[in-house]
């Protein structure tokens, strides 16, 4: 009898406490399930897939896309889009190489990259926020414009880090690690934590959600919608600048025509997989972190299964669509 009661109580416990929790997890954070599923699939392809080293590699490869995606999450939550991030990365990295070559200072390079990235994003923000042009158009235009400047700037060829101190100061950042955790991954995690804090613990974070949720209502509560939009695009630019800095440390050169090219697509995909609503108003920074990892897990699995490269993108596209459709099916808000 006592045993039965315990079972019953456990069952009720499950019903009352775990079920809503799991349901919420599944509805809002299903990227976690996608990730687990993908990792299990990967396990079939290779015994080594789930080894710590291989998992760490997965996160490491998603760092560049992931850091930019943190900013893109804000952009998309606010109901906008930024197509120019790939070009911002290219231009910022190109300028960053020149700064490093002429100064040899890692600190100045970092500051320069942040500032230039932020400034390029700020320009996007001005057009979207003040001039009220659709973000899609503004960033489509700056995407081509920034890329063109980059190519002019580099004279068409690659810009290579030539300063002698590269191996002493820059390269250790791109390749170094503390206790098996690469600096790049630490950087990514740190930025994720900061952005999580911004979005969850500050007034600004609430404004971003409010603007994406109902711009008219947000304005009527006294939110300066224009300023919020400018800030969002500037932050995305800044994060892209930081990604550009890491890009230099990792690769030591920037091909002006291709660096960061079509990054925007992977970035948006990572945000979408991470559960951020493409209609704005809802989304999670932590989701984007996992979204970026999932994106690269797909890549890793496809190559583990020796899928030819040209089919790669097709399968990726289908999986992204599937992820977003799943969210749409699960996340039904009542239409009152």
């Amino acid at each position, binding site marked *: 009898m006592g045993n039965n009661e315990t079972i019953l109580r456990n069952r009720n416990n499950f019903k009352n406490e775990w079920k809503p929790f799991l349901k919420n997890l599944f509805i809002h954070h299903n990227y976690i399930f996608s990730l687990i599923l993908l990792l299990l699939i990967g396990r079939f392809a290779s015994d080594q897939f789930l080894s710590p080293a291989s998992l760490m590699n997965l996160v490491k490869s998603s760092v560049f896309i992931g850091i930019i995606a943190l900013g893109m999450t804000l952009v998309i939550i606010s109901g906008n889009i930024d197509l120019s991030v790939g070009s911002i990365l290219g231009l910022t990295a190109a300028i960053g190489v020149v700064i490093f070559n002429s100064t040899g200072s890692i600190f100045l390079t970092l500051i320069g990259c942040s500032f230039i990235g932020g400034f390029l994003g700020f320009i996007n923000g001005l057009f979207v926020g003040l001039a009220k042009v659709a973000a899609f158009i503004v960033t489509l235009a700056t995407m081509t414009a920034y890329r063109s400047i980059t190519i002019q700037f580099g004279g068409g060829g690659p810009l290579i880090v030539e300063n002698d101190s590269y191996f002493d100061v820059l390269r250790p950042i791109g390749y170094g690690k503390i206790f098996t955790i690469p600096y790049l991954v630490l950087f990514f995690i740190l930025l994720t934590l900061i952005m999580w804090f911004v979005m969850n*613990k*500050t*007034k*600004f*974070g*609430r*404004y971003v*959600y*409010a603007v*994406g*949720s*109902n711009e*008219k*209502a*947000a*304005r*009527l*509560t*006294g*939110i*300066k919608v224009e300023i919020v939009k400018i800030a969002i695009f500037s932050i995305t630019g800044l994060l892209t600048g930081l990604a550009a800095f890491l890009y230099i440390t990792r690769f030591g050169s920037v091909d002006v025509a291709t660096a960061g090219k079509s990054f925007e697509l992977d970035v948006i995909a990572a945000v979408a997989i991470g559960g951020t*609503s493409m209609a704005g*108003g*809802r989304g999670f920074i932590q989701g984007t972190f996992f979204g970026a990892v999932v994106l690269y897990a797909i890549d890793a699995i496809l190559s583990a299964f020796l899928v030819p490269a040209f089919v790669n993108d097709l399968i990726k596209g289908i999986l992204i669509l599937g992820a977003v459709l799943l969210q749409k099916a699960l996340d039904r*808000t*009542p239409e*009152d």
Partner: protein
Amino acid sequence: MPALFINLLQRENSMLLEMKNISKSFGAVKAVQNVSLSVDKVEIHGLLGENGAGKSTLMNVLGGILRQDSGEILIDGVEHNHLTPIKSGHLGIRFIHQELNLINDLKVFENLFLNNEMTRGGLYLNKKEMIRKSYEIFEKMNLDIDPLAYVRELDTSRKQLIEIAKALLFECRLIIMDEPTTALTNEEIESLFDIMRGLKAEGISCIYISHKMPELFSICDRYTVLRDGKFISSGNFSDINEQQATEMLVGRSMADDVVEKNDCIIDEDVFQVEDLTCEGFFNNINFSLKKGEIVAVTGLFGDGRGELSECLFGARKMTSGKIILKDNELNTRSIINVIRSGVSMVPRNRKERSILKDLSIKDNLSMSYFTSKQISPLISNRVENKRYEINRKTTNIKAGDPDDLITSLSGGNQQKVVFSRWFGLDSDVYILDNPTQGIDVGAKFEIYQLITKLAEQGKSVLVFSSEFPEIHKIADRCLVMYKGEINKEFSRNDLNEVDVMYYATGSNKKGEVHGK
């Protein structure tokens, strides 16, 4: 007698349209109950009723947009109980909606023939013919609109006339006009009436929906009055006067529940509006608010009331005039500046203008505190929960977890959250635009108590409302607007619905409009 003959005989003697005992519910809300309406051949029939009286529902049933739950529709004595928009079009019923259904990026003639395009061989558009027909119809209506102009270049009244032209373009027998004159100038109204009389001479009938008494009396033959979804009466306009018509329209007994309010008005002007004008919406508005006073502003659709409320809050640019708040001119350049100066606003249309649907209850509540009062950029969960708890008690919000989405609450509770959003700011002036829109009776009463409480705390309250019972319950004074001007001011003691309607419909300006 052969059946065909009987049928013909019936056709000869029957009304053009008979709607018998029509009922239609939306969920628990009975929009119309057992309403009957008949329109004779060759008549202009006035359909009267306040907002929410069921006029639009009834007309949507006739237009085939809604299906009635019960009741019969006879056209020429023949039953047509299952109307669809297409079927109703085939029967010669044209519906001119109140809101414009034109596509701005198409030309006038393209809009006229939208979905009814004339073609050569079924594919190639016969533009020449469409343009020729468009000219023809405008000539008939005595209008100088260029069919080749883009609709976006025309002003609202012209667009309204195009809607009417669209209805006249094809064979029709009965035209439904839902408040067609709200955007029209007096001359345009006059020429619309000429068109209607011309149509009548051609044997085309009309159902004319309006609250404007002078217009109804000058153009309509018979009337049907609806109130609260029920049929009230029907007859000839020649047998009644405007006073009687307004009484039928209003009818209901006065408030049952009384909202207690202590006399708390202090003779000190807190908020003064001087010669405020916003071109196209309202002109030269002057009034002032005393400390502890509740002033209601009312009127009918198209009176510029909504735009006035936006101007006062800095949400819409004024053309000229000024607002004085406690002896200082209010700078309305930005909303946040207005809020910080001490003016709060609960906007109309909660879903569209107040609710941040993806945010939690407590975030919705705290938002304007964040923007105007809180200096620190960081949010403290503890402080936010405390703020929620205080407000939950004062406004009696019924909610579970403050972290739940705002959309999980009922309409009334959502509105209480929106009210709470502004209460904490301790403003001097509260502008409430349609504060009880779409909430149930119980919650309405609670909102009235909150408004009264505000006044008793020495706040000045300006309530924009279209519901008289509400105004009667809470207002110390009432300003009645008509076509962008304050037409009349009532003090609490003189306030009665019939008089308010009289001025809201512009009946006192009858001479200025037009005679029959």
